[in-house]
């Protein structure tokens, strides 16, 4: 009986290991006997064979604007999604949409206020394989950033929405995890500046809408 259990455990471990190493960096199926060949091909084959991908990217955004940092804290959690389309290897087109919601308190009266941020970026991305399971990429492109402010302040009857256009640049590492899945360690700088006359106070307000974003996402290639 005991021998039977040991035999079963060994079999399961073997099967897991076997499944884990049955696809190469580009998602192609390989068998155990081909592993040494895959490692060789990942270095020597054209890395631009990578297909389109979709990513979900949790991150942390550090606000660039000092006023935001005073009111909302240094930053907050942001969730983003990105799609990449292959153009000409190693060049890709990317589109990225994010969402952030931060809470804080007005100054100096400590009125609860929330800020929602939606950055949307488009641009080009270059992906450069370093190893068989590791690639480096850089990207850049224009963006649109929308901000919505809401508060409990009774003197403001409604929320306020502001948007601006700017630019996004970023870099990251793609680490092959399993079959079509990759770990995306990334950083972005989302830049957008807005200068406007506040309709309540008639005071000119200048704000940086973006910030420095870093995080780890999961990429699915297809």
């Amino acid at each position, binding site marked *: 009986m005991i021998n039977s259990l040991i035999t079963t455990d060994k079999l399961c471990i073997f099967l897991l290991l076997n499944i884990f190493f049955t696809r190469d960096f580009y998602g192609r199926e390989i068998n155990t006997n081909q592993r040494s060949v895959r490692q060789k091909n990942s270095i020597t084959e054209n890395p631009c064979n990578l297909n389109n991908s979709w990513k979900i990217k949790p991150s942390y955004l550090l606000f660039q604007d000092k006023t935001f940092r005073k009111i909302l804290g240094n930053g907050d959690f942001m969730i983003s999604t990105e799609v990449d389309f292959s153009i000409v290897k190693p060049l890709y087109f990317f589109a990225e949409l994010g969402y952030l919601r931060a809470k804080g308190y007005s100054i100096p009266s400590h009125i609860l206020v929330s800020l929602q941020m939606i950055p949307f970026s488009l641009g080009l991305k270059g992906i450069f394989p370093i190893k068989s399971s590791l690639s480096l990429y850089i990207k850049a492109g224009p963006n649109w950033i929308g901000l919505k402010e809401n508060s409990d302040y009774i003197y403001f009857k409604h929320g306020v929405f502001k948007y601006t256009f700017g630019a996004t640049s970023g870099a990251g590492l793609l680490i092959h995890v399993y079959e079509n899945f990759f770990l995306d360690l990334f950083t972005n700088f989302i830049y957008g500046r807005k200068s406007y006359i506040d309709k*309540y106070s008639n*005071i000119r307000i200048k704000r940086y809408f973006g910030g420095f974003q870093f995080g780890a996402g999961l990429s699915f290639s297809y």
Partner: protein
Amino acid sequence: MRLFFFIFTFFITCFQSLWAQLEWSSPITISDAGFNSETPQIDMDESGNAICVWRQQDGANFNILASHTTDYGESWSSPQIISQTGVNNQTPQIAMDTLGHAVAVWRSGNTVQTVSSSDYGATWSSPQTLSAGFALDPEVVINSLGNAIIVWREISGSVRIKVSYSSDYGTTWSPGVFISSTSSFSPKIVLDSTGNAIAVWQQSGAFSTIVRSYSSNAGVSWSPALTISEATNNSEFPQITLDENGNSVALWRQQTNDTVQTAYSSDYGVSWSSVQTLSNIGETVQDPRIAMNSSGNVIALWRQLNSFPDYDIQATYSSDFGASWSSPSAISDTGESAIRPRIAINDSLAIAVFQQSVGTDTGIVSTDSSDFGVTWSPLDTLSDLEFIAIIPDISMDSSGNAIVVWSRSDGSNTRIQISYELTLPPVPTISGSKKKEIFPLRIDLQNIITCDPISEPGTYKLYDNSALTNPIETLSATNSTVYFVDHLQNSGVSKTYYVTWTNESGEESEPAIVTIE
């Protein structure tokens, strides 16, 4: 600079009135309906007690009546007759101390009679006759030591000045003694809190002059009379004041040149300065009046013919116990005729009242000065118009509470009316500033109006209009700093605010004004 905590003050301008226009109550009629009442006189103490006396016709004769208040004039007792009936009584005078004692005196028939009260005028003693012969024109003074002195004119060969004193608040009186040697008129007397007294009167001789006699023992003994007016000109109608340090100023009309003249003493009336003329020579002057406070501020009033039949009330002031005087100026309305001035002064305020024509009517008007005669407030009409109001008298305590009394026809009879000074709440002390409430995408620019604490409970009201209608906000507080915040202001736009303070009685102060730019 910490960006998110900067509260900054812009141009702030605060305005306060240079003089505080007093507020007076509506007239209160205190004499009985159906009787003619006139010649009211009033005196008040430091605690809101006041007694008013007047004469009232009962059909055949005049009686002396008294009414008193214990609440600065707001309510009055029913009038009571304090004189003998069945005889004509007139020219009542009243004096009260700070302990509830009062002495009233009047001419009763051809005698001088007096009564006293030890309960602020609630009850009165029976009348006592002081004079021994034909007597008239009594005056009375009293202090809190129980000293009281009455001076009057009495015929004894000629009409001379006679005095009697009391050491028990007017309960008993000494036999009267003459202090003038020839025919005398218009006696006036002053008494300080320690028993120093000065009497002045008009005395006939080669010329009719103003003379004085002083007493340093509350009227027990008197100095020989001394002429204090010009010896070779006729003078009449003296008035006199005395403070607690022996400073005294006398005022009279000099007949020869028809001027108002004055002299002063700094030693309880022992010696006197040379005579100064206050009015311009050639003017027709009458009825001089004078009042002095403990700081040496003296105000003199008189009526002066403008163009017959119009008279002005002229005023002049001194800040050095009568040593030097300002040029006189009119304090009555141009084009209206004003007569019978009366003046009261304390260490913070002077109030003048007089009778003045108001269009086709005649009323009692008042004006006040918080700089002791340098400037005067616009006139305030105290009496109702339609029927004539005449012969005012005024009394004021050291805190500025004042009561004015006069007689006015009600269409059928002449009645006694009073008006008391409404105690206005203090004007709040305020300042203004701007503040930013900063949000991520917008700013609430606020105007902050800070009100300094007032020790009494009350309510601050914030207005944005000088008519003080529809307050923006109302805040109640007791002895704490109050902040009004006007939100969502526009930068570059100045705004003026008016803040009043209302006490628990519902009386609202004058506004304090601040402009925030």
